[in-house]
């Protein structure tokens, strides 16, 4: 059994908060550049050019690429043979506190949905922990902006709705979101599991490297079909009209009950940020 002191986690989380918000992933940048090649609408092209230029400024000046530096969401993979000495959750929250303060990132969390009082340090984070074999700790940080999160949705479809039902529900969600979630978007889809499992899968789907298809044939097929239908919507960059509405559709699935077909759509704006570290 390996032991890791929780205090070791704080500086790593702090660094993740800053780097994820300053440096847009190479995969997203590549997808934006490919989108620029493909886009037919002049307004759409102008938007993509601004976004590529914006990513450069953020990277070079080490400033937040978007002022909405997000809800601090973490996916933790905790090795079963690792013992954490101290409070893992508190260590992560302390890292967020320090990272958002020092990194000049916006504090966007209110302490209660109805009192709307800002906690002023962007905590508490949302922390998902999964156990994995081994003795390592993997921390994935994925800050999530409010604008695209607000356009996310889920439904409990009937098994008879099948593939067509899933495709229609996802395409309709993207259409309804229109310009609001800052297209070009990435569409995370979770199918199966239970009522709470499907949205979790949809969010996890957003962590995949852009351009990688699901290894499950049913999911890969869904991804291709939804991508093609979304392109036909004409929403385009920022909703000004155009071809490049989604950079990718990414599907994750889980076995489900004989009576159910849960489907969840988590929409991610073009500032698709996630960074990880292994301790």
């Amino acid at each position, binding site marked *: 059994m390996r032991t890791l002191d929780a205090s070791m986690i704080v500086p790593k989380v702090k660094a993740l908060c800053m780097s994820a918000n300053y440096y847009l992933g190479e995969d997203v940048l590549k997808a934006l550049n490919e989108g620029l090649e493909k886009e037919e609408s002049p307004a759409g092209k102008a938007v993509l050019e601004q*976004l590529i230029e914006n990513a450069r400024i953020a990277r070079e000046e080490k*400033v937040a690429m978007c*002022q909405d*530096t997000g809800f601090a969401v973490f996916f933790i993979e905790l090795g079963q043979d690792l013992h954490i000495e101290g409070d893992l959750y508190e260590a992560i929250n302390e890292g967020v506190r320090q990272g958002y303060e020092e990194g000049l990132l*916006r504090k966007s969390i209110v302490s209660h949905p109805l009192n709307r009082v*800002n906690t002023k340090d962007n905590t508490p984070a949302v922390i998902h922990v999964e156990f994995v074999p081994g003795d390592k700790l993997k921390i994935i940080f994925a800050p999530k902006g409010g604008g695209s999160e*607000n356009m996310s949705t889920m439904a409990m479809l009937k098994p008879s709705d099948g593939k067509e039902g899933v495709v229609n529900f996802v395409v309709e969600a993207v259409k309804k979101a229109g310009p609001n979630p800052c297209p070009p978007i990435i569409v995370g889809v979770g199918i199966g599991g239970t009522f709470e499992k499907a949205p979790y899968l949809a969010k996890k789907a957003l962590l995949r490297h852009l351009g990688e298809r699901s290894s499950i044939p049913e999911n890969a097929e869904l991804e291709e079909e939804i991508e093609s239908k979304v392109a036909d919507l*004409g929403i385009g960059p920022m*909703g000004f*009209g155009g071809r490049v509405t989604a950079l990718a559709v990414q599907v994750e699935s889980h076995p489900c009950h004989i009576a159910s077909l849960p489907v969840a759509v988590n929409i991610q704006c073009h500032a698709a940020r996630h960074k990880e570290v292994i301790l």
Partner: protein
Amino acid sequence: MNGAKRLTTPLKDSDLDNLKVGEKVFLSGIIYTGRDAAHKRLVELLDAGKELPFNVEGQVIYYVGPAPAKPGKPIGSAGPTTSYRMDAYAPRLIEVGLKGMIGKGSRSQEVVESMKKHKAVYFAAVGGAAALIAKSIKSKELVAYEDLGPEAIFKLEVEDFPVIVANDIKGDDLYKQGMEAYRRV
């Protein structure tokens, strides 16, 4: 942005008469920031017949909650937030003379009608282009509601702030027309 118009705030009716959806504009002058929480308070003041913390006549409100500034800089990253959340409040401000709004995403029919009736326009900025937009903001001064943190009202001095006309005074809508032009279903 090639072929962009240049406008300076405060805006007059004559500035808006010839603006058309899809037109690129560089805005200069003073604009005010405001999001959900600040709008709620402004409308509560109007409801109570009280004076607003700034005179909205001819002014432009930018829907933004900026990131903190680096030392020596006026503002941190400052891109637009989604505008529909301000739809419930916008017509009240337009009635008392607000001439422009900057945000992202489409507006409700009620806001579009109000812009048409009282001559006001809605400009879209590029959501997420926050580091780039910050470069056109030259100064920032607190006006009201400091307790709201990033949601407080600030007075910004801007120079060539890049926007595109999303709703004009004729009731046209860039989002509807743009999507219509490229839709294949």
